[in-house]
């Protein structure tokens, strides 16, 4: 009951205190080595950046929406707000400083075919909460656009009930002037499925951090993503998947194309907790470096406390295969076109993870748009 829960304001005060005590993440923070936030932003600027505006276009029937800016939030909000996943400092900041945000609820058994699109294009802090009740399903497209300047800091919480299924596609357009941070916490009940794709075309500093808890048997998480970066672009995806219960499954497939002076980061930690037997986790991260000045840092990490588990991970950084390039050119495909073909081919399996055809097409469209920047030879 509401009476037993701390008020929203009390939670925000707690988050503010937590942020004040720990401060800005910097390169000596664990897992912030490749994204030194403190070097480009101070705590005062985070507080001053205010609240980011959001917009949901065409809410499908059956999905309930609540404005977190209003004080009379329903119990589902109060039960989950600030409660899912770890509480890293920037996520606390988004709770402390955002005077708004959006909560979505899909009631039990409702399967929503039409995707919900959430647009965030302004600067500031904002919160998103999605609660999918038992046996419900939803496709959520998060579209991050605009390059208005300093900071966009998004805190996301997702609660998936028994057998609930969320397809989440996060699209972040190139924003070379902006710092874009997002923390996503996901808690999954028995048999729930979280499928997420992260298409990110780079910011001045971009960090997407995930903490996924497979709390009950047969819960699954399938993550994929692509980066196409050029110039000074930066994109860091840091994930932590915890197999809390047995017979849980997770897969990750990330493909990164980095040209110019850009930097692509993947840090994927998997924890299989004691007793989570029969868990199966796979992670693959590959980067294609175009030219000698781009950088990729790929770091898979496994922490296993259970006995009977299957875990596989792989990471590789490389260049375009000269044999393939020669083959295509010897068939008459001009060099630039052959390079594009091979880059698209490299990204193909990761983009194919997006189930919704329209969203897949829009990611390919963005890839086409970003490729000329990535392949451009920089001085």
């Amino acid at each position, binding site marked *: 009951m509401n009476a037993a829960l701390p008020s929203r304001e009390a939670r925000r005060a707690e988050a503010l205190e937590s942020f004040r005590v720990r401060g800005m993440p910097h390169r000596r923070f664990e897992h912030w080595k490749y994204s030194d936030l403190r070097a480009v932003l101070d705590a005062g600027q985070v507080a001053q950046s205010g609240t980011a505006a959001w917009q949901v276009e065409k809410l499908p029937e059956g999905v309930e929406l609540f404005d977190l800016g209003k004080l009379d939030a329903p119990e589902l909000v109060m039960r989950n707000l600030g409660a899912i996943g770890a509480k890293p400092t920037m996520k606390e900041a988004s709770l402390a400083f955002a005077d708004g945000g959006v909560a979505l609820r899909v009631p039990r058994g409702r399967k929503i075919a039409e995707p919900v699109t959430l647009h965030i294009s302004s600067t500031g802090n904002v919160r998103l909460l999605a609660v999918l009740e038992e046996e419900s399903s939803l496709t959520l497209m998060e579209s991050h656009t605009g390059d208005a300047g300093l900071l966009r800091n998004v805190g996301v919480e997702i609660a998936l009930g028994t057998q609930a299924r969320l397809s989440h596609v996060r699209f972040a357009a190139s924003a070379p002037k902006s710092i874009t941070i997002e923390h996503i916490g996901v808690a999954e009940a028995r048999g729930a499925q979280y499928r997420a794709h992260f298409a990110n075309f780079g910011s001045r500093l971009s960090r997407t951090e995930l903490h996924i808890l497979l709390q009950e048997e047969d819960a699954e998480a399938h993550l994929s993503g692509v980066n196409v970066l050029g110039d000074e672009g930066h994109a860091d995806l840091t994930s932590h998947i915890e197999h809390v219960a047995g017979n849980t499954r997770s897969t990750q497939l990330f493909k990164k194309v980095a040209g110019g002076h850009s930097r692509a980061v993947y840090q994927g930690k998997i924890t299989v907790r004691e007793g989570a037997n029969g868990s199966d986790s796979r992670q693959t991260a590959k980067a294609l470096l175009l030219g000698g000045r781009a950088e990729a840092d790929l770091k898979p990490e496994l922490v296993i406390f259970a006995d009977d588990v299957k875990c596989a991970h792989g990471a590789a950084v490389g260049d375009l295969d000269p044999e393939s390039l*020669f083959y*295509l*050119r*010897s*068939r*008459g495909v001009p060099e630039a076109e052959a390079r594009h073909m*091979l880059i698209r*081919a490299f990204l193909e399996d990761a983009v194919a993870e997006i189930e919704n055809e329209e969203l897949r097409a829009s990611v390919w469209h963005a890839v086409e748009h970003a490729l000329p920047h990535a392949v451009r030879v920089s001085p």
Partner: protein
Amino acid sequence: MLEIKNLHVAVGGKEILKGLTLSVAEGEVHAIMGPNGSGKSTLSYVLAGREGYEITQGSISYRGEDLATMKTEDRAARGVFLAMQYPVEIPGVTTLTFLKTALNAQRRARGDSELDAMSVLKLVRQKATALQVSEEMLKRALNVGFYGGEKKRLEILQMAIFEPALAILDETYSGLDIDALKLVAEGVNALRAPERAMLVITHYQRLLNYIVPDRVHVLAGGRIVAEGGKELAHELEAKGYAHVVKEPA
């Protein structure tokens, strides 16, 4: 059509071809034979324009133009085709998409209009049947998971679709059983034409029972050491390379 004069080619600073001279006219099929390491593949790569093959001396003239200064893709558009010994696998690109992209790139370079997807499909299907290249193969990623024979058939299918003026077949025979070999040879023979020249590169004589050459050249130590008609291939089969190849001391 093809005039190679005193060609010297170095790979990684090491000279592989050491003064090769060869002349191929339109409508002719020439076989280049020779033991392993004699420079056969180097010749095929240098004709196709692979990077890292440096011409240090001599010339290659193709239809009166200097081939050596042409970009790889321009050579293809002007009718040079190399059927490779080891066709590469390209995951993420379907065979049909590849064929369409390549065909239209060549047409564009020649100033012809591009073909739409339906026209390409029709053309490919028409040529694919004879080579037993299935619809399923065309939908798969290029060469990925193809058997050796399937890869070679796909190379010949490309030759049938692109209709090159000069086709170079590099060890097309290798890795094929006798039925696959006959099928590939039939495909090649069907493409023999008065306006087309072929260079068949092989170290086995057996292929030449099926693709009968007009001329046979023996390559050893980076240059042509013997030449003759198709009977030379039989002589090599009977007596071995050592008999024909008299290495200069």
